[in-house]
């Protein structure tokens, strides 16, 4: 098993999944928060825009989004994330960022909904109290709504992170040499070790996602807002 792991650079492949997940998660948190703010704003056009974004992105298969990023954004529109000149790794690096883009826009829709479920843990009276001491929309978001929404939304946000980690395997569809790619390789060259290969990959994901689940339930009870 160890030899298999070394021979096919399983750790290096998983490392790519980790990088994809980490970068996409940070960006999805930012974008998801922005979309959530649009949905909370007292302007109906913004509400509509936020709701439409979530409906569209949440209901489109992730593979489609990532393939679109590759075919549409790069091959058709020529959008490139890294310099091409003198860069032997151009394709790999560009594919990484295209995958990050797809993972981000897709999971941002779920982050938005997780934050909104956090908002629902806050009694409406608190935003009325915020307004009645003269806080504007932005101030009451920053000071009253979002801090409690993040704390109340830790568990659903953690669930999105777990899904995101597993969903990084979709990046293989546009040529990222992550673990799903490596698994296909291993299966091809060592068909005799099929079950073992499967176990290695499955256990790898458990090792990655289990701490997230444990961490978020610990955090959510530690940071729970007492009402």
């Amino acid at each position, binding site marked *: 098993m160890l030899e298999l792991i070394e021979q096919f650079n399983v750790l290096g492949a998983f490392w790519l999944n980790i990088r994809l997940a980490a970068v996409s998660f940070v960006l999805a948190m930012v974008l998801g928060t922005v979309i959530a703010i649009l949905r909370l704003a*007292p302007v109906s056009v913004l509400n509509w825009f936020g709701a439409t974004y979530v409906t569209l992105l949440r209901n489109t298969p992730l593979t489609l989004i990532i393939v679109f990023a590759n075919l549409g954004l790069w091959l058709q529109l020529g959008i490139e994330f890294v310099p091409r000149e003198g860069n032997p790794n151009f394709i790999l690096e560009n594919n990484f960022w295209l995958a990050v883009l797809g993972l981000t826009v897709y999971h941002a829709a779920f982050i938005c909904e997780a934050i909104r479920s956090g908002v629902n843990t*806050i*009694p409406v*009276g*608190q935003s*009325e*109290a*915020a*307004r*009645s*001491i*003269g*806080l*504007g929309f932005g*101030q009451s978001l920053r*000071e*009253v709504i979002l*801090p*409690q929404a993040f*704390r109340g939304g830790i568990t659903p946000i953690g669930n999105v992170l777990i899904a995101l980690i597993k969903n990084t395997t979709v990046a293989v569809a546009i040529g990222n040499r992550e673990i799903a790619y490596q698994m296909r390789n291993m299966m091809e060259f060592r068909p005799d070790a099929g079950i073992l290969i499967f176990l290695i990959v499955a256990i790898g994901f458990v090792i990655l996602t289990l701490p997230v689940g444990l961490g978020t339930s610990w955090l959510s009870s530690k940071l729970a*807002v*007492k*009402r």
Partner: protein
Amino acid sequence: MTDSRESPGTGLGAPLVVLEDVNKHFGDLHVLKDINLTVHEGEVVVVIGPSGSGKSTLCRTINRLESYESGTITIHGDELPSEGKALATLRADVGMVFQSFNLFSHKTILENVTLGPIKVRRKKAAEAKQRAMELLTRVGVEHQAEKYPAQLSGGQQQRVAIARSLAMDPTVMLFDEPTSALDPEMINEVLDVMTSLAKSGMTMIVVTHEMGFARKAADRVVFMSDGAIVEENTPEEFFTNPQSDRAKDFLGKLLTH
């Protein structure tokens, strides 16, 4: 409005909050019907009436937590702005105390009281803190300053909510049934704070069924029924000699409870 009434304590000043022909609907329901009400500087007005008569809506309309369709509401002669920065500025001058306290659960008692002064009034943190401690002392919860709202009793939370409003130096304070969510033994500690506030000259509009408070602190009682102001009078006159049938009926039920 130049009705003659004896006012305990402070004399009455110029008109501060003026509602003229205010109408509001919730869908088909006409919740505020041609409301005309003038509250003078330093005046304490108690609003009383059966459940669903529009008392909360009246309060919430005055600081525009609810919109209204027609009529005007002015504070110090300025009409209520309908949104944006100007509205936030106006709200900062109008204190509001809710039935359910509505303290910010993730902030300490002290932070609850300093938030508005720091973010809205742009006070320095140290200055805001010093004033907050004075106010918390005034309402008797200074020892709870570092605790979170959930660690306080309802009566303590409501007194903090009053301090939070006072910290903005409001020109008028609205109270929407501030004691009806409280256990009986805590009602008086909140009413005492409100009574001393009234005595200090604060302009107050108070929705409450506490007759003791109305008698002790109010200059005027406004009786609402079905979205309209049916009767207004001094507390003494209103409670002992109500004019309208609806007020008589309502007081009868209130007293037999």
